[in-house]
């Protein structure tokens, strides 16, 4: 299990990195945390001609709060976010999702942006970006653009990034005052990719009716799937509504089948987890209100 040969570039500026990426096109692969890429290299599933290691770009190793969002640079480690009380306070869902990603040892290397670029539909961070309606800032030597989460993920392990583009930062919206969140998953072991994961962001008005709801599913379709919930707004999240949303989620998804879980079982998990997550969230909010 040794990787095939590759040329190695360690740019010291973003411009250098983008120029090299542009020169190499699909022959070049960006190396950030490497926690998904290097296993593929070791197994020779991926054999790029060159690696462009962005870990030398110190300007990408920064977390900042800009325009109501947490801007997480491309080389910020997942464990750095985990250790940052400020980041976890601004994006409470991170505190729920991060500990579920792989293990502490892989989070010490793995990055948020790298996980987004890898676009594994069962990974936690793409789901998090989708449910929070975040975006990524993408640069190439041709210029820069912002891609919303819903436009970023195209299919299994496929994003809308061009071959010469690099995710420079992710924007994760800061939680509005009344917003509450939940995240749940079923994995076979602690730290495994989830068979199915669910996440939601919600707001209740003074009367306890839903003022905001986003519900998203991981591992249940080729991309993190945001479930249509507009008709739930203004309604009380009672048992009936929750059951209806859970049912809708299980119908809306198109889960894969593999030896860990059949599509039917994943659908069932979507239904169960959605229902349980919304119920738990509601209970939490009710407890907080009293």
């Amino acid at each position, binding site marked *: 299990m040794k990787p095939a*040969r590759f040329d190695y570039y360690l740019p010291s500026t973003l411009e250098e990195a983008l120029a090299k990426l542009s020169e190499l096109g699909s022959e070049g692969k960006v190396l950030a945390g490497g926690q998904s890429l290097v296993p593929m290299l070791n197994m020779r599933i991926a054999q790029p001609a060159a690696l462009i290691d962005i870990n030398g770009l110190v300007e990408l190793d920064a977390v900042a709060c800009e325009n109501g969002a947490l801007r997480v640079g491309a080389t910020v480690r997942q464990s750095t976010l985990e250790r940052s009380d400020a980041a976890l306070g601004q994006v409470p869902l991170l505190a729920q999702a991060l500990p579920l990603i792989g293990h502490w*040892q892989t989070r010490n290397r793995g990055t948020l942006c790298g996980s987004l670029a890898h676009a594994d539909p069962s990974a936690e961070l793409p789901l998090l970006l989708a449910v929070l309606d975040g975006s990524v800032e993408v640069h190439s030597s041709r210029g820069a653009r912002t891609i919303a989460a819903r436009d970023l993920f195209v299919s299994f392990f496929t994003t809308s990034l061009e071959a010469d583009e690099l995710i420079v930062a992710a924007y994760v919206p800061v939680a509005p005052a009344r917003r509450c969140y939940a995240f749940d998953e079923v994995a076979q072991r602690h730290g495994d990719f989830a068979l199915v994961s669910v996440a939601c962001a919600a707001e209740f008005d003074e009367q306890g009716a839903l003022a905001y709801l986003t519900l998203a599913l991981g591992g249940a379709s080729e991309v993190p799937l945001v479930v249509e919930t507009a008709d739930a707004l203004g309604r009380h999240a009672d048992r009936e509504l929750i059951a209806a949303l859970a049912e809708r989620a299980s119908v809306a998804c198109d889960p894969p089948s593999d030896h860990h879980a059949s599509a039917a079982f994943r659908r069932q998990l979507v239904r169960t987890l959605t229902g349980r997550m919304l119920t738990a969230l509601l209970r939490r909010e009710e407890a907080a209100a009293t």
Partner: protein
Amino acid sequence: MISHKAGEHAAIALTLDGAPVVEQAPPRMLLSDFLRQACGKTEVHVGCEHGVCGACTVRVDGRPVRSCLMFAVQVAGHRVETVASLGTRDDLSMLQRQFHEHHALQCGFCTPGILSSAQAFLEEHTDPTEREVVEMLSGHLCRCTGYRAIIDAVLACARERREGIS
């Protein structure tokens, strides 16, 4: 921009277990292989080469990482510590001694990686819960012990460290 062609060897200067080291490696050489083969650090054990088992865990700039998921060229200018940075046979570290007393190792193949993680963990968590220890440890596979003794050894070490401080 630093660049190394596939066929070339790069000179890699790093601080390894506290000592400056310069050794050569081609770009594709895994950090785990580099530490074992070029630097003679057979303390680093290789168990899966896809980042799951944790046997090859070392500390890079203080943080435990899988050395099979990094390339040697990536540690140029960085600080790498293996289990050799802990105690010696005649002067075991507190953590190593607790492992010994709790029978927290059997074949000992996964042990250096676990010690590297646990040492870093204890430096960050002075009073960890059992659940936190289990979460840290879940990044390592051990097929011999069933883990209980390892958990106990880490918790005992945390206690001993606290008592030593207070």
